[in-house]
């Protein structure tokens, strides 16, 4: 874990001794890590190692499950996220899911602005138009859909739908965007579009990306976490981890011995 210390970028998220259990079965064990601002951080590891659980703990979506226990803390800009209401927290931490999930009853426009509409946040029409255009431009979807903004979002292709979902998360200008294997349901071309997008988005946002695709992590992430059986095995600059892993388990995973 030494190779991260030299880095001076300030952390936006500090996770301290975070443990999460379902029914006393620990899925995340004592994870401590600092996520730096304006970076892409990849969470890697074999399936079932607790990647999604850790990610969902960051915007408290894991609380949807019953019998969950959470120990430790996570600070967003120095404030413990368990002291903020989940509703407020989630407006600062956008989330993108494995499968594109636009609201089927809503138009493309309404999907982008859904966070405002569903929360009953009043905005002027001009302001909404601006938010929609900016968010769709951010995900490079504006030119493709600007003439069909009032069509249902579900008419788009899978890749376009996923970018629409990213736009929906961006509409609130969140500080952090959490993504759980956002390209695993997409074809290679759509995947590479989303990857390009993430690299661009980190100029303005901080991205935490769960992926079980190692080459994806290598291509687009600045930092990587490697998890195994709920533990954080290794954390550091992606370049260093891929060329010179410290822990033997990381090396085994990266060389394809398990996963």
């Amino acid at each position, binding site marked *: 874990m030494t190779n991260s210390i030299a880095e001076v970028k300030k952390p936006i998220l500090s996770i301290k001794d975070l443990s999460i259990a379902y029914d006393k079965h620990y899925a995340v064990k004592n994870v401590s890590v600092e996520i730096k601002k304006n970076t892409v951080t990849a969470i890697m590891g074999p399936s079932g190692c607790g990647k999604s659980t850790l990610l969902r703990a960051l*915007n408290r*979506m894991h609380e949807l499950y019953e019998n969950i226990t959470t120990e430790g803390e996570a600070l967003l800009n120095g404030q413990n996220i368990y002291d903020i209401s989940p509703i407020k927290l989630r407006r600062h931490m956008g*989330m993108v*899911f494995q499968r594109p999930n*636009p*609201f089927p009853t809503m138009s493309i426009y309404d999907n982008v602005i859904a*966070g405002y509409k569903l929360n009953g946040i009043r905005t002027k029409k001009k302001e909404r138009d601006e938010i929609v255009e900016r968010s769709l431009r951010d995900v490079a979807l504006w030119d493709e859909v600007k003439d069909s903004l009032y069509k249902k979002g579900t008419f788009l292709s899978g890749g376009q739908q996923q970018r629409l979902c990213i736009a929906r998360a961006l509409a609130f200008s969140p500080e952090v965007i959490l993504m759980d294997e956002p390209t695993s349901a997409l074809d290679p071309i759509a995947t590479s579009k989303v990857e390009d997008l993430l690299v661009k988005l980190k100029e303005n946002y901080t991205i935490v990306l769960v992926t079980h695709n190692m080459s994806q992590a290598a291509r687009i992430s600045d930092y990587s976490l490697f998890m195994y059986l709920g533990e954080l095995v290794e954390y550091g600059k992606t370049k260093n981890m891929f060329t010179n892993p410290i822990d033997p388990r990381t090396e085994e995973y990266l060389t394809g011995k398990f996963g």
Partner: protein
Amino acid sequence: MEAIQALKNQDHSGRRQLKDKLFFYGIIVLSLVTISPIILIISKLVVEGYRQISLDFLIQTTPDTFEAMTAVSNGEKIPGGIANGIVGTLLMVVLASAMAIPIGILTGIFLYENQGKFMANLTRNISDILQGIPSIVLGLISYLWVVKHVTSGFSALAGSVSLAIMMLPMIVRSTEETLKMIPQTLKEAALALGVPYHKVILRVLVPTGFSGLLTGILLGISRILGETAPLLLTALGSSVISLDITKPTSAIPLLIWEFYNDPNMVDLIWSSSLLLMAIVLILNIVSKQIAAKRK
């Protein structure tokens, strides 16, 4: 290899073809048996009832038995119509829906939200039992509750209460089933936008399942449209158009029952049944269409 060849050469084809044929004709016969009642019913209603159907039939109230007798003995069309029944049915269906739909949808949401919990299971079972209670018993209950204690007499309100109890379990069920079919990911998408839970249900799940809820409501309405027994004990019937929910009112099925008991009004039985049947059929087709569109 040889064994397979031998099997192939065995000639069962004659017997098999016969079996296939028997099966095929059997199915045709059975389907005919199933659809013939509905064809017979509809043709009977149309043949016997169409003569009475006219604008007057829809906007006039029921004739008295003397008027009807005169018309019948002169070989004329019976004057008047069933507007008092149409208005009464509409009034009671609207009232019953106003009671059953909100309660039913809220209960359905409660069941969906509390899968596997004791109170939810209990509520679901009670709702299922309610569905099995004979409608005449619901009429009796509403008689005891509403006719005796609320409106102090037969009333549209009492009729609506019995119909609402009848509709309620259907709406509860369809709401729960509809919500269960909505993918979890949609709920998560809304929650991840910081939308409070109750708004997720009301603004995302309910609109997404809207056509399913509507189907349940339409089927519920078509179920209560033809109910007669509970209305005999509650709404009683009336020969005038009344919008006062504390007063007795007529309904199309009540009129059919009255016409049945009056030898001079026989012709009106068929036309009234035709109208009722047409409404129920249209509601059923519409709800099937909505359900099919969702797929």
